[in-house]
Every structure is written in C-alpha cells, then in structure tokens.
C-alpha cells in the first residue's frame, strides 16, 4: 500500500485512475451528491435546449394529459408541459437558493465577526439572534411575504432573514476560539489594524465552517421557497418556480398527481444532493466539524 495520506486528498498526483477511483470510493457522498447536483444544474440551465414546450404559454386543448411520449411529465390544468415547467422551475429555485446562501453568508459572517471581536456588542447581537431563532422560519417568512409586494426579491429576503442567525452563531463561536490563538495575539501586538486582522487572520480560518453552513442553507432555501409557494405566499404565480408549480399542482392532486409529483421529486433530489455534498465536504475539510453543525 502506498501512502497517499501525505498528499492533498483532492489531487491524485501522477494522474493515475486508481487513485482517483480510491478517492471517489472513500468520499462516496461527494461523488453521488456532486453528480446528481451537476446533472440537475445542467438540465435547469440548459432548459431552453432540452424542453421543447413553452413553460408559461397556455395550451388548453392539451390539458390534463398524463405522462407519456409527447408530454414526458404530463400537462397541467392549462395544458402547460410539466417537464418544461419543472426544468425552468429549477432555474428559479437555484437562483433563489444561491442568492439566499450568499446573502445570509455575507451578512451573517459580518455580524458574527463583529460580535466575536467586540465584547460590548456580543451580548446585544446574540440576544437579537436568539430572538430571531425563536421564531419558526416558515412563519417569519410567511409574515414578511404578507406585508410585502410579492416578488422574487421579497422571497429571497424573507428566506434570508431567518437563516442569518445560524451563520452569526457559527462565525461567532469560531471567532471566540481563534481570537485567543497566539498568532492572532501576535498580530495584535505588532499593531495590525482590526479590518486587516479580521480579513487576513480570522476570516480564512472561519471559512470552512461558513462554506459548509452555506451549503446547508442552500438546501433549506430550496425547501422553504417550495413551502412558501405551497402555502400561497411565494413568488408571483406567473413565474414557474418549483414553489408555484407545486402550489398549482396541490389543488390538482386528486385528478392529476403528476403536476406535483415530478417537480416535488426533482426538488427533493436537488435538496438531497446539496445536503450530501455538504456532508461530504464537511467530512473532507474538517472532520471535527461533524459535531458542531
């Protein structure tokens, strides 16, 4: 047995297929999750080339067709092709999920860094975060959507707000540990200013848990968007998001189950693949994290 542990696990040097194979087998969750996610992203982005029907245009004569050769996933109550709508819906859901992960990641990291560094700010910020976390995320998002004009941006913000405290807590807990490390104290001692200290010395060490957490937020944002749609307060109904297709399909579940089944299954597989990727990356980058997330 050759010792591969000295090399970076992601780079099978020498390019031997055997090493790549061994890496893939050891990190099966990353392989499966990554492949699934890649396929889903590819078919969503490539929707105009794959789906032959307009996802929005009405085609009433062809309504309620069950899945078959012409309409792979059947059609809905307006004759719209469920396959097209599912693929196009993936684009909207992905866009929402990535925006939420980025926004809550950036805002949460910022607040978390400050809360971790300033002792006077810490209790104030953390009590606000405790309060936000006590409100169930679905209810908080629903309340915001009732008060705002419906729109993609509103949905993104309504899903971001409940996710921010999770990032803040995580970043703060990491900062509290890093802050006491000798190299940070050394940097402070030679007069490093705070922004540089945060950016150069503290943030890089907090990055791994933030990335893993952002992956999980992506997954939960996809789910939350669909719940908002299901409850009727999501993105405006004319946009074919998964939440909206599901909201419409829900009223048809007795007569045309395929309208909700296919987008729901796609959604489930997408969330599953993101979660698997998150688990895999977490174990790969830092096994000690397993307990904290």
């Amino acid at each position, binding site marked *: 047995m050759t010792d591969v542990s000295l090399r970076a696990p992601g780079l099978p040097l020498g390019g031997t297929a055997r090493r790549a194979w061994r890496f893939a087998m050891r990190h099966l969750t990353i392989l499966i999750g990554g492949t699934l996610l890649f396929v889903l992203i590819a078919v969503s982005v490539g929707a105009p080339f794959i789906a032959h029907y307009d996802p929005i245009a009405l085609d009433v004569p062809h309504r309620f067709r069950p899945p078959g050769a012409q309409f792979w996933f059947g059609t809905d109550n307006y004759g719209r092709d469920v396959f097209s709508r599912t693929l196009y819906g993936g684009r909207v859901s992905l866009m929402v999920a990535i925006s939420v992960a980025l926004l809550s990641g950036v805002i949460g990291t910022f607040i978390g860094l400050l809360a971790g560094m300033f002792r006077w700010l810490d209790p104030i910020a953390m009590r606000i975060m405790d309060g936000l976390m*006590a*409100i169930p995320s679905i209810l908080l998002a629903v309340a915001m959507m009732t008060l*705002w004009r419906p729109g993609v941006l509103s949905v993104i913000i309504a899903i971001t707000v409940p996710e921010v405290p999770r990032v803040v807590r995580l970043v703060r807990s990491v900062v509290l540990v890093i802050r006491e490390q000798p190299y940070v104290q050394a940097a402070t001692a030679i007069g490093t200013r705070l922004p540089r200290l945060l950016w150069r010395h503290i943030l890089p060490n907090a990055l791994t848990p933030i990335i893993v957490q952002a992956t999980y937020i992506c997954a939960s944002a996809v789910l939350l968007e669909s*719940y908002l749609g*299901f*409850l*009727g307060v999501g993105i405006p109904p004319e946009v074919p998001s998964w939440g909206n297709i599901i909201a419409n399909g829900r009223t048809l579940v007795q007569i045309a189950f395929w309208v909700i089944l296919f987008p729901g299954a796609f959604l*489930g597989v997408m969330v*599953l693949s993101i979660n698997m990727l998150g688990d895999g990356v977490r174990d790969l980058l830092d096994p000690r994290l397993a307990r904290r997330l």
Partner: protein
Amino acid sequence: MMTFVLRKLGSTIVVMLVVAVIVFLLIHLSPGDPAAIIAGDRANLDDIAQIRQSLGLDQPLAYQFALWLVRLLHGDLGISLFTRLPVTDLVGQRIEPTLALAAVTMIFAVAMALPLGILAAWKVGTLIDRAIMALAIVAFSFPIFIIGYGLVYGFALTWRLLPVQGYTELARGFWPFLQHLILPGLTLGLVFMALLTRMTRATMIEVLGEDYIRTARAKGLGTSAVLLRHALKNAAVPIVTTIGTGIALLIGGVVVTESVFAIPGVGRLTIDAVTQRDYPVIQGVILLSSFAYVLVNLMIDLSYGLFDPRIRTT
C-alpha cells in the same frame, strides 16, 4: 439552584422581549404601506385608512409599541381583521388538533430516532449505519408535502388502512382521533426523526469512544447495558437539546402538514389568515409559537440543572 433558575428565567424574559420587538417592528420596517398591501388591490382609500387605524398604524411609533406591549402583557393579541374576534379566542378554538399533531409527531420521531441513531453509532461504518444515514438524509431533504402525499397514496388510497385527511376530536372516541393523526404524525415525524437520528448517532459515537465505556465493557457488561445505561445517559443532553431547538422546525412543519391533511388547527388558521391578509392573526400566531418555543427550551434547560449539578454552576 435558585440563582441558576433565576438566571435562566431572566434570559428567557429577555429573549421573549426581543421576539416581541422583532414581531412589532416587522410591520413597521416593511417597505411601502403595509395597510395598503393588507387591504389588497381592490381597496379604496377609506378601506386602507380603516385598516391603518385598526392596526394602530396612525399613531406615533413609541406610543404604538407601549400600547401593544401593555395589551400583550394582559394577554390581548389584538382583533382579527376578518372575523372581528380576539386572536386569542381564534387560536384557542384551534389549539387541540395542533397540540395533538405535535405530540404524535414527537412520539413517532423519538421512537424511531433513538433506536436508529444508537444502532448506527454502534455499527458505525457498516452497511447498516450507511443505510440508516441514507434514510435520514432522504427524509430530511424531501418536502413534507411529497412525503405526506406519498403516505396518503399508499396507506389511505391504495391499502385503505387509514383516512385520507381530516380530523376527529378526542371527545368523539380515541381510535377515530388517533386514526386521523397517524399519517400526518408519521409525515412530520419522519422529518424530525432525520434530524434526531443524525444527532443521536453523532453524540453516541463520541460517547462510545470514552474511557468509561471501555471500562464498562472490560468489566463484562452486556452490550445493551453499555449502550443504554452508560452511553445513552451521557449522550442525553445534546439529544434533548436538539429536540428543544427542533421545536421551531416542528412548529413550521405543523403549518405545512395541517395544510396537506386538512387538519383544522392553528396552522390552518394561519394559512387562512394569509389568504385573507388578516395580519393580526398571523402576528398573534408567530408570537404564541415563538413563546412556546422559548418556554419549552427554558424547561429543558432547567431540567438539565435538576439532573446534572455541574450545569448549574457553569
């Protein structure tokens, strides 16, 4: 012990106050005119003015907050814009199905998660462990309504073992009551189970690596005694904490689950309020469920202090 209780109680009150401020500010920080949005597109100026007045939005902010807080402390959550009934009455009428669903969900989840989590930790790395973790991540990833409709299709429509949807009051017999709760409880229970199983497994793996477990094994204790009496007892705190923080997830899940199974509970009340843009009801439900979450977690925290003297002093 007394200072421990008082300290926990104090921080709970602070969190509840923060929740109240957030919920209060929600309507005031909204871009645009919330009264106009609540009134809808077909409303005229009089309607909007009336809604603004009944929500108290025409008063100065500080005055509104003080008034709102005083009312809240008297247990007054406001009046529904739609039915003109007090929000507390509306919630009171709908609380039974919701509590019943939450209880059945919790029983299902814990009954599935503990054995699965312990088994996975004990057999860590094996096929059994991988299968259990795969089940957990799938249950955690699929939306509640897909799991719910799937269970309805199997158990209610195909095998006709259980009712499709609806709710029967406990007063009309225990079996009809339970019958209607099995599928919704299982649906939401699966999601909650996934969360708990992952936590149970992770904690048990950590505990099973401790020296006292090796000692227990070395002195000849049986597997079940080691797992349950020595390991699970010491893994209990993180597991119970996860149950506590999971309450927020549970409450959100109840709203969706009640919607899937047409259960006339608080979740259904919320969704009806959303379609009618009945903001005081939504606000009241948010406050009550957040307070419920905070109080359950207070109780859990206090119970730690009772069982484990070390926690009291930290």
